């Protein structure tokens, strides 16, 4: 049983999300043998001056810069930790999907705001990428909701007593984790922040702006990992430890897997990703939803 938390739980939940994101960043640095890189980077960026560009749209730029971190926090409020969740929305899964769509807007705005070529290229690349991963992601979210017969994330987590959804809906699980990497602009889906576009969306961001965008990226990975645990890996279920501890452990495992993958896979260009997304991932995940629906109907 998962219950909602009082309003003040927003603050520890936000701290937990940022802490998880920091762990991810430290691990990412450690893979390059510089575990202290995130901390050094935070100090450096806090002291660095922000950058001004000619005729920038300051309002939209600010929205785009703060956006990814805010979206990650809004995603995290529906992720249950053990037996509690900050916002026990009756349509938590749709909420998560809506926040992912808000990301389309804010990343594009982060690219549009500075009135500069490379960020704009990055923003357009992200939109093209989003069009490819969004539909497979939607149906990957549909599969656990159908199996649990609820759109409440907490109920989906509880419904997995006995058999984790990752075991019997592997396609949806893989597509979901891939989509988390895609909306975080991570690893093979890092083209919107690619080096060939001088850092893409990040190209003109300096100082606190850059810190916010980078932190937002790690926070998105963390929030997505938490959601993967709730939807596919049994939430807080596990022996010996309390529920919240299992949620944290599993989230960190998924996050670590995503972080390790970063430099090990080739980048996927958006136009090729469109083919993979629409011709491979979408039919596969639709077949997955069909299998899940048949199982649910047969079991009654």
């Amino acid at each position, binding site marked *: 049983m998962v219950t909602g938390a009082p309003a003040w739980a927003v603050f520890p939940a936000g701290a937990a999300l940022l802490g998880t994101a920091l762990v991810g960043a430290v691990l990412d640095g450690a893979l390059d043998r510089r575990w202290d890189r995130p901390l050094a*980077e935070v100090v450096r960026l806090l002291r660095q001056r922000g950058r001004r560009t000619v*005729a920038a*749209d300051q*309002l*939209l730029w600010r*929205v785009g810069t703060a956006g990814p971190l805010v979206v990650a926090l809004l995603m995290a409020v529906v992720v249950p930790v053990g037996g509690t969740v900050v916002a026990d*929305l*009756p*349509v938590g899964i*749709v*909420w998560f*999907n*809506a926040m992912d*769509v*808000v990301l*389309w*807007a804010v990343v*594009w*705005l982060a690219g*549009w705001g500075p*009135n500069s070529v490379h960020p704009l290229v990055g923003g*357009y690349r992200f*939109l093209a990428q*989003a*069009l490819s991963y*969004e539909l497979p992601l939607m149906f990957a979210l549909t599969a656990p909701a159908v199996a649990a017969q609820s*759109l409440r994330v907490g109920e989906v987590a509880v419904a997995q007593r006995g058999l984790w959804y990752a075991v019997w809906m592997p396609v949806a699980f893989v597509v979901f984790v891939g989509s988390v990497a895609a909306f975080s602009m991570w*690893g*093979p889906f*890092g*083209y919107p*922040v*690619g*080096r*060939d576009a001088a*850092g*893409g969306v*990040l190209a003109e961001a300096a100082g606190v702006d850059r810190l916010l965008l*980078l932190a937002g990226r790690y926070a998105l990975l963390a929030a997505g990992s938490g959601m993967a645990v709730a939807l596919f890996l049994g939430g807080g279920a596990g022996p010996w430890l309390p529920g919240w501890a299992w949620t944290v452990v599993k989230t960190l495992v998924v996050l670590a897997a995503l972080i390790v993958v*970063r*430099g090990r*896979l*080739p*980048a996927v*260009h958006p*136009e*090729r990703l469109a*083919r993979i997304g629409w011709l491979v991932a979408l039919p596969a995940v639709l077949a997955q939803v069909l299998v899940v629906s048949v199982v649910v109907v047969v079991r009654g």
Partner: protein
Amino acid sequence: MVQLALFCLFAVVAVASGVAVFRVDSMARATYALALSFVAVGAVLLLLDLAYLGVVTVLMMVMEMAIMAVFMIMFMMNPGGLMPMSMLHNKRGALALSAVVFLALGAGALLLPWPKRRGTAPADPTQAVGEALMGPKMLVMMGIGAVLFTTIVAALVLASAHGRYDHGPYDRGGSGARQPQDRTTAEDGT
């Protein structure tokens, strides 16, 4: 009381950003002002216990506006709004007509004797709409499905400059052969 205050806030945001769509010069701002208007309307739906419809409105409309911004900037002259200019025709007539429509609709809303509320809201409106769509209203859903599929085909036929087996200038050599820089990781590293 809190509900009324929240409703007033969202209503003001919805109308003000709706007006802003046609007042700002920058196309990016116009598009995202419209998106903000839809988000405020989604919040109003949440106030009416329509959790699913409210969130879905936000989802669909932000997605639509994100795509719309691309087309706005592609097709408008002066997309950045750096040179203020007017792109209106018959402004006075449009203003008069829409004012008349607003007064008529508003008068209807205030003066008509609306019937009493019949029944009470179900415990889970999401389930109610789902069961309606899969039961008595199934024809609506099937109609929407057919229309959406037709739309996809028709829009592609109209908009695509290429045929079935021609995927544009990026893909002349089929899907396999690509340049070697494909293999590098496009990661920023920091």
